[in-house]
C-alpha cells in the first residue's frame, strides 16, 4: 500500500519581490524510512 500527498506549499519569492521570503524544502531523501509525525518538509516564516 502507498500514500501519495499532493500539496501547495510556500515558495521562495525571487527577485520580483525583494523582501524576505519563505520557502518549502523537503527534509527527506529517497529511500529514507520515515515515521508518522516526523517532518517531511519545512518552510521559514517570512
Amino acid at each position, binding site marked *: 500500500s502507498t500514500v501519495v*500527498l*499532493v500539496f*501547495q506549499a510556500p515558495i521562495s519569492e525571487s527577485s520580483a519581490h525583494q523582501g524576505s521570503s519563505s520557502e518549502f524544502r523537503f527534509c527527506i531523501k*529517497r529511500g529514507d524510512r520515515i*515515521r508518522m509525525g516526523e*517532518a*517531511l*518538509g519545512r518552510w521559514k516564516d517570512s
Partner: protein
Amino acid sequence: TTLLRKGQRAQPRASAAGSNGSSSQGNSFLVPGATVATILMLGALHARRLYDDKKIEEARTKGVEFEFHPDVKARFLRLLPLRSISRFWGSMTGMELPVWLRPHVYKAWARAFHSNLEEAQLPLEEYASLRDFFVRRLKEGLRPIESDSCCLVSPVDGTVMRFGELRGPGAMIEQVKGCSYSASSLLGANSFLPMIAAGEANEERGGEENTVTDATQKSWWRISFASPKVRDTESSRPLKGLFYCVIYLKPGDYHRIHSPVDWSVLLRRHFTGHLFPMNERATRTIRNLYVENERVVLEGQWQEGYMAMAAIGATNIGSIELFIEPTLRTNNPQKKLLQSEPPEERVYEPEGTGVLLKKGDEIAAFNMG
C-alpha cells in the same frame, strides 16, 4: 496435525491387515514430507525476498536509478482475479485464532516483515485475528508529532519513494525512470489541482506571484466550483509551489494514516480498480500502477492552499477504512467487467468547510484484504 493424527490412527489398522503395511508407512511420511517441503519453499521465498531487498537497498545507496521494464509476470498478474484473491485473503486473516496460537502467529509475522512488537498497544493475545493485529494501534507517545508549526509531517510509517515539485505540462509524477503518471489521473479528472492552461503559462510566468496570491486570497472552494473543470489537463501546467511525496508502506509497517497538517477535507473520491501488488518490483514492471489500483482520495485546503491525499490499496491490503466516513466500503466485489468506472465522490458537510482535521489526527487505516 489432523492429517497426521489420521495417519497415525490408520497405521495400526494397516499393520493388523499385514499385507499393505509398507504402503501406509509411505503415506504417513507423505504428509510430514509435504509440510517440510512447504516450509522449506516458504523459507526459500522469504530468503530470496530479503536478498532482493538487500540488493535494491545497495543499489539505491549507490545512486542506481531503476528503469521501467515490463515483464511476463506483470502481464500474468492482469489475468488473475486479484480482487477476489484479496477478499479471500481478508476473510482468511479475519478468522479468530485460538488465544494460545496468537503470539506465535504474530511473532512469526513480525519476524518475516520486521515489525516491532514492542510498539503494539495491546498484549498480543488480545488481537483476535491477524487482520486485527495488522491494523494495531501503537502505544501512546511512540509517534510524537513534530511541533514546528512551519512543517508538514509524514502521515504514515513507510519508505519515501519519490518527492519533488510538480512542474511542466500535465503535472507528471515519475513512477520509475521511463514511466510517469499525471497527478490529475491519480486524483481524478475533476480534482481541484491548481493548474493553469498552457496558453496562460507564459502570462503566468510574468505575474506568477499575483496569480498565486490571488488564488490563496480568494476562497478556494468558490473558485473551484465557480469555474468548472474544462481545462485540458495534458497541456495545462501546475501553479508554482505544488509538491508531491510518495510513501510506500511495507507489510510490517504501522498501517494507520494520520493528518500531515491542520486542514479541512472537503471531498472524498473513491476509485475502484485493480489491486496489483505495490512493492518495488511492481512499480518497475506494471505501467500506471498508482492510477490503476483501487484508491481513496481526500481533497481539501490548508493554510497554504491545496492539499490532497491518496491512499492506494494493494492485493494483500485491499481495503481502506476511512474514520471520517465509516460507511465507506472499499474492495467490494466487482459488479462490472469494465475497470474504468468514474470515481464515486462525496462532498463533506458543511459545504465549503468540510471535516476539520488537526495535524496528527487519525484519518484512515489500510486493512488486510
